[in-house]
């Protein structure tokens, strides 16, 4: 269970408040108008923003007391998810411990094939389109072992067909590995396709 209790974040003069309990293994879509604090909540769970009050409990452990590196969280940011000077494959293998390089490459390639980016793996990120970059980041985030996955507008740059493929892959991997997933989206189709719970922030 992920419990967000009386959580308060202050950004300048703007105060944001959150309250929600999410069952383990659930997919929660986060919606709300721009500036309502969707990304800030994800950044706070990941540890990049410090809350002014409240707590975030995961299996009864307060995440706020843990360093970023100790939190059981994998996050996909809206942008800047890739090291520009490393190959796509190398980027995709980061953040998870594989048995061997061969195993890492096989796992990544299999996922990349489902996301239609297998032929991009040996390129540099600068050679990829926005949508391809986003899928590389998405792939890496979902393959990481952390039980909590935070995705900040993961399908924003994808066309509708690719979006459907990527969303299905996310749902499959999340359910298969019992991941608790929070996903920011503005699209109703993502909510319909993925959400166990839709959390509308106001």
């Amino acid at each position, binding site marked *: 269970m992920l419990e967000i209790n009386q959580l308060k974040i202050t950004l300048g003069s703007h105060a944001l408040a959150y309250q929600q309990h999410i069952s383990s293994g659930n997919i929660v879509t986060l919606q709300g108008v721009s500036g309502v604090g969707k990304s800030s909540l994800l950044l706070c769970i*990941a540890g*990049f923003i410090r809350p002014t009050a409240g707590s975030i409990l995961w299996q009864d452990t307060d995440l706020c007391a843990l360093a*970023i*590196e100790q939190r059981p969280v*994998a*996050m996909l*940011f809206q942008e*800047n*998810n*890739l*090291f*520009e*000077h*490393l190959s796509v494959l190398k980027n995709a293998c*980061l*953040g998870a411990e594989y048995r061997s390089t061969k195993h890492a490459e096989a796992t990544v390639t299999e996922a990349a094939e489902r996301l239609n980016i297998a032929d991009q793996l040996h390129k540099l990120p600068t050679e990829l389109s926005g949508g391809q970059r986003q899928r590389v980041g998405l792939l890496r985030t979902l393959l*990481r072992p952390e039980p909590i996955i935070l995705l900040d507008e993961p399908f924003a740059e994808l066309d509708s067909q690719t979006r459907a493929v990527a969303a299905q892959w996310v749902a499959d991997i999340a359910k298969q590995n019992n991941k608790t997933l929070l996903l920011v989206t503005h699209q109703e189709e993502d909510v319909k396709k993925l959400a166990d719970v839709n959390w509308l922030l106001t």
Partner: protein
Amino acid sequence: MKLTNLIGVLFISMICSVTLLAFYGLIAFSQQGADLTLLSDSYFHAILLFSIKQALLSALISTVLAWPIARAIYYFPTIYLKRTFLSLSLLCFVLPTLVLITGFVSLLGLAGILTPFLGDNWSLYGLHGILLAHVYMNLPFAVRALHNQLQNIPDTSWILASQLKFSPWQRLMLIEWPALRGNLSLIFGFITILCFNSFAVVLALGGGPQSTTLEVAIYQALKYDFNIPEALTLAWSQFAIAGLFFMLLYRSSSVPWLAKDANLKQWLPRLSTTNKVLFSIIYAVALLFILLPLASLLPGLLATKYSSQLLFNIFQSLALTLALGLGTAVLAMLLAYCIMLPIRNSIIVQRQQLQNILQWLANHTLIAPAMVLSVGLYILFLPIIDLDELGMIFVVLLNTLIVLPFAIQQIRSRLIQFDQDYAILYRSLKLSFWQRFTIEWPYIKAVIFSTFALVLLIAMGDVAIFSIFGSDHLKTLPWLIYQYAGSYRINEASFASAVLLFVYLVILLNIEKVKSDA
């Protein structure tokens, strides 16, 4: 605190301990502190004023003259030998002072090639000789730094300016000046500190008590009078004033003068013929200024009587110079990288004050008088260990401390840039130190190699520290040049200088290659 940060803090503490030990060595030996009565002495006021005056004038002339030269090579990118000019500019900055002084003496000394054309009153010695040498070393540095700043102006600014039909004045004030403004004061401050602490130039060209700086006065107080209280007063004063300059300087970021030259400017304002001619003249004068002292080594080179003993001496010294330089450079790079770890962390967690303190402590050897460090440690360790046997280790260690601020300054921007771009990402990926390093390495490789070569060159030019800890049977090449020049064997000095110059050029060309490959 993470282990990696702890190692960095440990290294910073070690550097500070060396400085403290050196001062302790002097204080313990004399059994008294600084002689504070000196502060009201007119001799002290005179050298203090002269130190500040020559430093400010050197920095002012270098910075002001560098601007038109930097503009010339920026606005006229196809100008003849531009890349060579930029490489030579780096050479001037790292050139061993003794090579430069040998060149200046051949050119403008008593029997110099140009001296007959300069009138009866001309003398290379005194304020203008010092200014000339300081400007020679620092003007090209300023040109490189300003040129790099100009290269950072995005093409879109020029496109917009031309679309909005900006006048040359508007271009200058609205585009060029904002790009340079921040760095002009940094460059000025950096040169001021270097010239304020200048030793070899002032010692060689100072010309008597009217033209003495604090650093030289410390040397004289220690070498001739062995007056430690006086040396301590002078040292503390130098430390305080240079420290003040340094604190002002370090409030901003470092000057990226080794940065890769972006040669792919697509868009620049079109130059009129008048401007092209004007820029060509400015550039030619600058090139001549850089080349003349180097070319003036040639007559001595041709007049040298080559013997196998001379060649053996020179190449043996060269081998020692390279070995000591390499040891220093490896150690300095290792320290610089480790020291940057806690500094980077303090930037990431936004602890500005901690960052300033760590940076100041890590770089304090830029302002600590090298003579005090060397003599203080020498006195302290003389009764304890055999310095004849272990002197070379001290040469490497002390040179490491002297070149460390340059190493930190050069790698700092790139490492901070990496953190700015990727800190959130690598923290989110929970990478181990080693994983992070392997990702970081391709990003910083070029700057690490070019900085390595730079600190190697600076360390290879050392004379001051070797003069205290060096041995009589093993000599470095700069020390050999000093001995040849001191015994009026100017031809041999010119030959040895030319060999050293050649080695410097080879290393410099490699720096440029590494940067262009990156």
